[in-house]
Structure formats: C-alpha cells, structure tokens
C-alpha cells in the first residue's frame, strides 16, 4: 500500500472536521475523494501533506509514518500537492514557478553560488531543461517566460500541477483541479491526468466535477460530515443509497 490513512481524526476545538477516517491508496491508481462542501476533503489533504498535525490516527507513506513531519520533508519523500485556491508565486514566470520545485535536483552548495559561477550556470541549464519537460507534459511550454499570475485561470491551474510534478512525486494530491475550468479545458485536463498516471504517478484527487471523477477514477471514496460513508468503484458508489442521500437528501423529505 502506497499511502495509508488510518483512523484519522482532525479536531479544531469543538469541531470534528475529520472523524476516524481510514483510506488506502494503491500504487498507480487514481483515487477520488468526493463529498458535499465542508465534508472534510481538503482537511484530509492538509493533514496528509503536513500542514496540520492530526489529533488522532496516523498517515503512512511507503510504510513510513509521515503525520507530524514538516510539509517540506513530506514533499521530499515523494508526496506533492496542489492548492484549491491557486497559490502561484506572483513575482515569477511560469518557468521559475516550476524551477522552485526542483530543489531536490540541485547539487550546488551555497559557497559555489558565491565563488563558482560556472558550476551554477551548468546546473541552471539542467534545471531549466527539467522544468521545460514538466511544462511540455502540461502543454504550457509556450508560456514559459510569461508571468504565471498573468495567465488565464485554466492555465494557472496547469502551472500548479506542473509545479507539483516537478518535485518528482510518487503520489500527487490534486485539490479540485477542474474547478473553474470550462468543458474543453476539463477534457484536456482529463487527458493530462491520464498521461500523469501513465507516467507511473499515483493520483489522489478531490473533485466536484462528477463527470470527470467518474471517467477517470479507479476508486472513489465518499465523505460526509467528516466520515467516510462509502468506497468502491465509480458505478458501485454512484448507486449507493447512502451516497445519494448525502448528496440529495432523503426521499420523502
């Protein structure tokens, strides 16, 4: 099992945002996490990626307990994420945004940056090539030198994904990648996600666009009020009366 979430509980004062949730994510699958607004999806992402320390339970990644580790270390272990509200570096070009995430490729030391410009320049070339690879994967290489925040919304989302992939993750957590995208953009995103999986990267996905979720997910887990109410294949989950009730309410009400 690549990523194991075990009896995870996250409490903020009296509010239990995530209540005793267990999830297992297998290598190579696209695992979607769905549920009504406020059901705790993003909270789970924040715990797994190291932004919150869980109040109960634990998270294991490649067999190692990661809950409680600082976020940057979790990223270094191979778990990357994107943000629901875009968080691009606003002073940077698209290329620079991606290059920030390439720190693990860099071998030069600080003193070399002070006294050895040639070694640094050589490494910069390699980093640029690595970054361009990611931009090509996301089909945004022609915007490399544009200021990232000046791009249309849909493209900014892709810069976020390119940046996450640049950390060379084994699993990537995508928080509503299709939010705000039109139909064409969503279709293109679907192709890109399938391409990412084909490259051997596991995808853990929070998404409200049910069409997209049903098209690409191998496993779907459903959250409601911080509890997991269902898990299974797309077809099984979409027929589950408990799930229908969570989304649409009880019949006869």
């Amino acid at each position: 099992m690549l990523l194991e979430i075990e009896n995870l509980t996250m409490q903020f004062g009296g509010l239990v945002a995530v209540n005793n949730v267990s999830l297992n994510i297998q290598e190579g699958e696209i695992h979607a996490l769905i549920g009504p607004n406020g059901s705790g999806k993003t909270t789970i992402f924040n715990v797994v990626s190291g932004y919150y320390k869980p109040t109960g339970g634990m998270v294991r990644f490649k067999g190692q307990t990661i809950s409680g580790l600082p976020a940057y270390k979790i990223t270094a272990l191979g778990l990357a994420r994107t943000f629901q509200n875009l968080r691009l570096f606003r002073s940077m070009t698209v290329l620079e945004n991606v290059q920030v995430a390439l720190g693990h490729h860099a071998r030069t030391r600080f003193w070399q940056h002070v006294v050895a410009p040639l070694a640094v320049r050589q490494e910069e070339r390699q980093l640029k090539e690595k970054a361009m690879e990611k931009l090509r994967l996301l089909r945004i290489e022609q915007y490399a030198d544009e200021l990232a925040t000046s791009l249309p919304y849909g493209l900014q989302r892709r810069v976020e994904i390119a940046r996450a992939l640049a950390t060379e993750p084994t699993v990537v957590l995508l928080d509503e990648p299709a939010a705000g995208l039109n139909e064409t953009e969503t279709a293109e995103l679907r192709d890109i996600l399938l391409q990412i999986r084909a490259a051997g990267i596991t995808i853990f996905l929070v998404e409200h666009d049910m069409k997209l979720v049903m098209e690409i997910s191998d496993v779907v887990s459903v959250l409601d009020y911080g509890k997991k109410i269902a898990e299974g294949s797309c077809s099984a989950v979409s027929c589950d009366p408990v799930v229908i009730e969570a989304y649409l309410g009880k019949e006869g009400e």
Partner: protein
Amino acid sequence: MKTRTTLWKTLALVALLALLLAMPKIARNDYQVRILNMTGLYILISLGLNIAMGYCGQINLAMGAFWAVGAYTAALLNVNFKWPFWLTLPAAMVATAVIGSVVALPSLKVRSHYLAIVTLGLGEVINIILVNEEKITRGAMGIPGIKRPSLFGFVFNSEQKYYYLVLAAVILGYLIARQITRHRFGRAFRAVRDDYVAAKAMGVNIGFYQILAITISAVYAGVAGVLFAHLNTYISPDIFEFRSTLFVLTMTMVGGMGNLLGSLVGGVLVILQEALRTFRDWQLVFYGVAVVLVVLFFPGGVMGIAARWRERQASRLARQADTGEAGNGPSGEAR
C-alpha cells in the same frame, strides 16, 4: 537589434566605470571623497538588506547592530592583537554570520512586522552590550588607533586611496549578491516571500532560507562595518544609532526592493542627505514620508518605476509593429 543593445549596455558600463574611477579626481576635497566612501558602505548594507527584505521578505531591523559587530570585531582584533585588515575582515564576517544566524532564529516563529520588532529589539540589545561591556569595548570612550589597511606595501592611507578599496568591495558585493539572487537561492527566497505556504509544498525548507537570507544581510552589514572601522580609525557606540538602520531601510525601499540595482540607486540618498545637512532635525520626518509614499504609490521604488516605463515602451513598440503589419487592426496592452 539585440547586439546593438548589448553594445550600448557595454559602452554605458565602461563609461560608468570610468566615471567611478575618476571620482576622487573630480571631487573637490577630502570631505567629498569621504561622502563617496560612506555612500559605498551604505550601498553594501543596503544590498544585504535587499536580499533579506527585498528578496526573502524578512524585515531585518538589526542592520545597524550588525554593522557595529563588524566594526568592533575588526577594531578589537586590530588594536589588541595587531591583526591586519585582511584577517579582521574574514574574522568579522564569521562573527556577524554567527550572530546574524542567532538573531534570525525568531523568523522561524514570527513573520512580517512582528519579525521587524523582534530584530529591532535584538539589535538594540547588541548595541547596549557594546556600550556597557566597558572592559572589552571601552564603552562610550570608543576604540582609537585602528590601522589603515595595506596591500603589498600600498597603504590605503587617504580618503582617495580608500575610495578604491570601497569601490572594489561594492562591485564585488554587488556581483556576489547578483549571483546569489539570480539562481536557485534567489528563487527560493522569492518563493518564501511570495507565498511561504506554497513554498513548503514545493519542498522548500523555508526556515533554512529565512535564516540564510538574514545571515547574508548581517554579513554585508558586517563587511561595511569593518571597512568603516579601518577608514575612520576610531569607533564608538554612538556611530551605530538606530537612525542608520532606518536610513538604510529608506534607501532600499526608495531604490527598489527585490532589485539589487535599487540599492545602488538608493546610494544617491546618502549624497542627498549630506547636501541637506542643515535640515538634520527633519531627516527622520523625511525618511518616514519617503517610505510611506513609496509603499503607497511606488511599491517597486525607483527601479519599479523604471521597469514600468520599460514595459510601456515595449508594449508601444509591439503595438506599432502590430499596426504596421496588420494595417489598423485592434491591439491591446502587451499583458
């Protein structure tokens, strides 16, 4: 087109360098050269502050204290142990780096103006130590008799000769700062400043870079302090008042944060300050007003205005090319 602009740039650079080399001859007296020397030192401090504050977003208001630590380290080693400038300089760099990284530790817990207040307080603590540790620092009496530096028998024993030492230090300091900020470290600093939450998710160890940026700024101030101690040959605690830190802050913000050239441009303020010496009491008011105006209307400082002007030129050129090719087709802003 491109080769022509590089040619012009090279010519301008050569002209600037020639002008800088000729400055001691152009200046009418020692006093004017002295002001140029002080300008160089302030530019060094501002380069450091620009890395910490402009690039990494870490407001470090202990710059005056670091400059004092550099100056005192050099003075004490030179006067008590006869260390020459070329040894006091690296020693002071190590000392300011160590103390700088300690002062930087609170950046792990507090940010923005809270960090400003903490560094301000720690800087004052350092100054108070310098005044009160009379056995070591001679307190308010200061330390006289610091030797001028020499290089292969050439002694920098006049303002004019010292000018070239300061000029070399500023050029080297600028080039190193540029080298640091242009590549990986600069990007990590800016990532911390732009969005530290996202930076963490990109695997950036933000605490490390915050401490590094503040430590670099401390070393820059320390080097300026060493140069000052050996130039002035006498130092006392009252030279390092908080006013100097505020001045460097003003210089950096007016020049342009996050752009090293801004620190060079800000150097003009040192000369301006000297020219307006008669209004000395009003200086703090002037700094305050300048900073408020910059923050409100020109967040990028002088360099920001220059960049905006260049962008407008570029988009006008693009528009002209557009209309030239496509007749009178509609055309928007470049971005």
